[in-house]
């Protein structure tokens, strides 16, 4: 998995690319997310449009980020979720937990 990030309009955009299946790559995403949280960044969007699939390790990282942000007055939103990941969010009922947008622009706008 490759991982990039950028900031726009005060929102951190994380851009994983590939698969999130556990192991060092998953740790990289978790650590970067929590690095921004430690910097008191409160608005985070994870762009999942280039993530082919993830397993429960990936879902756990999303949950961990969400709860930590919410506990600190922030929010984590998802953008560009593929059909496969949407089916996993539905299976696990996490579709009811996350705010999910078609693309990053809409997710960023939702913070206003």
């Amino acid at each position, binding site marked *: 998995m490759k991982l990039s990030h950028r900031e726009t309009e005060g929102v951190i955009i994380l851009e994983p690319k590939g698969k999130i299946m556990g192991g060092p790559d998953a740790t990289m995403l978790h650590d970067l997310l929590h690095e921004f949280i430690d910097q008191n960044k409160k608005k985070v969007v994870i762009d999942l449009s280039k993530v082919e699939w993830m397993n429960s390790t990936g879902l*756990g990282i999303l949950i961990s980020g969400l709860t930590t942000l919410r506990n600190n007055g922030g929010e984590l939103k998802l953008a560009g979720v593929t059909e496969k990941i949407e089916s*996993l969010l539905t299976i696990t009922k996490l579709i009811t937990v996350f705010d999910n947008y078609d693309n990053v622009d809409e997710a960023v706008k939702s913070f206003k």
Partner: protein
Amino acid sequence: MDKPETSGDIIRIPSETRYIADVDEFIESRLRDAGLNNSIIADLAISVTEIVNNAILHGNGADANKIVQVRLTVTPERIEVRVKDQGRGFDPDKIPDPLAEANLLNVVGRGLLIVRSLMDSVDFNFSDSGTEIVIAKSINK
């Protein structure tokens, strides 16, 4: 054994999560060669990496000296994967329900739910030599 080994339809890895990607590549390349579609390949990859992750961390306690073995069988009608660890086993019925309101935001605990949803069957074999989980999915080409 200090790195993954493959032999025919079997891959064996030391119990380190950095080798999950090797199992994924092993499974996906063989399923692509069998002409399966991307959705089925993804379902198998998600399920196998899920079970291998559990085998490494829970079955073998992340002991790099212990082995996880994965055997893939593809027939025209069915895909079957057997994942074996050297652990003492567990009671699948005792895993807390990840769909319960109180557990929804747990970081872990939803792996078996995902595998059971994506696969047609999930079976457990516990023995003194370890735990084997067998998953299978019918193929509708």
